[in-house]
C-alpha cells in the first residue's frame, strides 16, 4: 500500500520547515544589535529597552511563520517591537505637551546659533558641531515628544525609509514626513537650548 509515502513527504516537509525556522532565527539574531539600538531611543531607559527587545524576540520567534521571506526582516521586527511598546501604554515615558513647541525657526537656525557662540571668524562646521556634547544630544532627543521621536528614531537613527517607517508605525507616509520634519525641528531647538546655555542670557 502507499501508506509510507505521505509519511516520507511529511518528514521531508518537517525537516524543511525546521531548517527554515533555524534560518529565520539566525537572521533575526544577527539583526538584534540594530534592533536594540533603535529600541533604546524609543524608550526612556536601558532596562525598558532590554525588556522590550526580549519580548519582541519572543513574539517574533513564536510567529515566525507570519514573516514573508525576502521582505525586510528588520522592519518586521521593529513593527512587533513598536506595537508592544504602544500596548505597554508607554508607561514610564514622559509625554510632553506638544502645543507650545515653537518650530517656526528655519533649518539653518541651529547652525546660526551655534556659530555665533564660536569665537573664530568663519569657523569650519566641525568646530561648530563641537559645541554639542554627546550627553546633550541624548537628552535633546529624549525630550522630543514620542510621536515625533518614534519617526525620528526610525528614520534618522534606524536609517529606515519613509515607507518602512510608515509601515512599522502603521501611519500614512505623509504623516511620517510631517512628523519627521517637525521632529527634526524640535530636536534642533532642544539642541540649541542645551548648547552652552550660560552664554544665552546676554544674547538679546
Amino acid at each position: 500500500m502507499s501508506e509510507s509515502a505521505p509519511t516520507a513527504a511529511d518528514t521531508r516537509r518537517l525537516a524543511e520547515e525546521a531548517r527554515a525556522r533555524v534560518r529565520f532565527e539566525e537572521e533575526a539574531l544577527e539583526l538584534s544589535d540594530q534592533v536594540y539600538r533603535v529600541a533604546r531611543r524609543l524608550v526612556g531607559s536601558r532596562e525598558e529597552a532590554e525588556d522590550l527587545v526580549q519580548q519582541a524576540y519572543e513574539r517574533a520567534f513564536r510567529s515566525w511563520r507570519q514573516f514573508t521571506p525576502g521582505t525586510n526582516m528588520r522592519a518586521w521586527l521593529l513593527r512587533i517591537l513598536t506595537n508592544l511598546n504602544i500596548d505597554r501604554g508607554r508607561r514610564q515615558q514622559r509625554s510632553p505637551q506638544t502645543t507650545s513647541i515653537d518650530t517656526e525657526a528655519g533649518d539653518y537656525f541651529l547652525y546660526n546659533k551655534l556659530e555665533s557662540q564660536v569665537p573664530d571668524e568663519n569657523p569650519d562646521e566641525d568646530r561648530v558641531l563641537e559645541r554639542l556634547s554627546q550627553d546633550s544630544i541624548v537628552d535633546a532627543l529624549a525630550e522630543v515628544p514620542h510621536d515625533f521621536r518614534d519617526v525620528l528614531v526610525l528614520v534618522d537613527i534606524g536609517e529606515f525609509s519613509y515607507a518602512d517607517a510608515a509601515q512599522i508605525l502603521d501611519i500614512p507616509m505623509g504623516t511620517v514626513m510631517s512628523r519627521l520634519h517637525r521632529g527634526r525641528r524640535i530636536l534642533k531647538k532642544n539642541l540649541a537650548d542645551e548648547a552652552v546655555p550660560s552664554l544665552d542670557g546676554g544674547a538679546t
Partner: protein
Amino acid sequence: MIDWCEKCEEMMQPFLDGALSAAEVQEAERHLEKCHWCAKRYRFEERLRHYVRVATAEPMSPDLKAKLAALRTPLH
C-alpha cells in the same frame, strides 16, 4: 526675485533624505556650488545627522544577547 538661500534652506532636509526630484537636486547643487554660506550649513547638517546616530548608539549588553540566543528553537 527668488531668494536662493531661503529656497536652499527649505530644500535641505528633502535633499539629504534623497527625496528631491533630479531637477530639484540640480537646482540646489547649482546654488551650493556658488554659495559657501549655504554649503557650510548643508555640510553641518550632514555631520549633525551622523553625530546624532553615533552619539545615541549604545551597545547591547552581553546579557541580553545571551538571553536572545537562548530563545532559539533547540536543534534536534
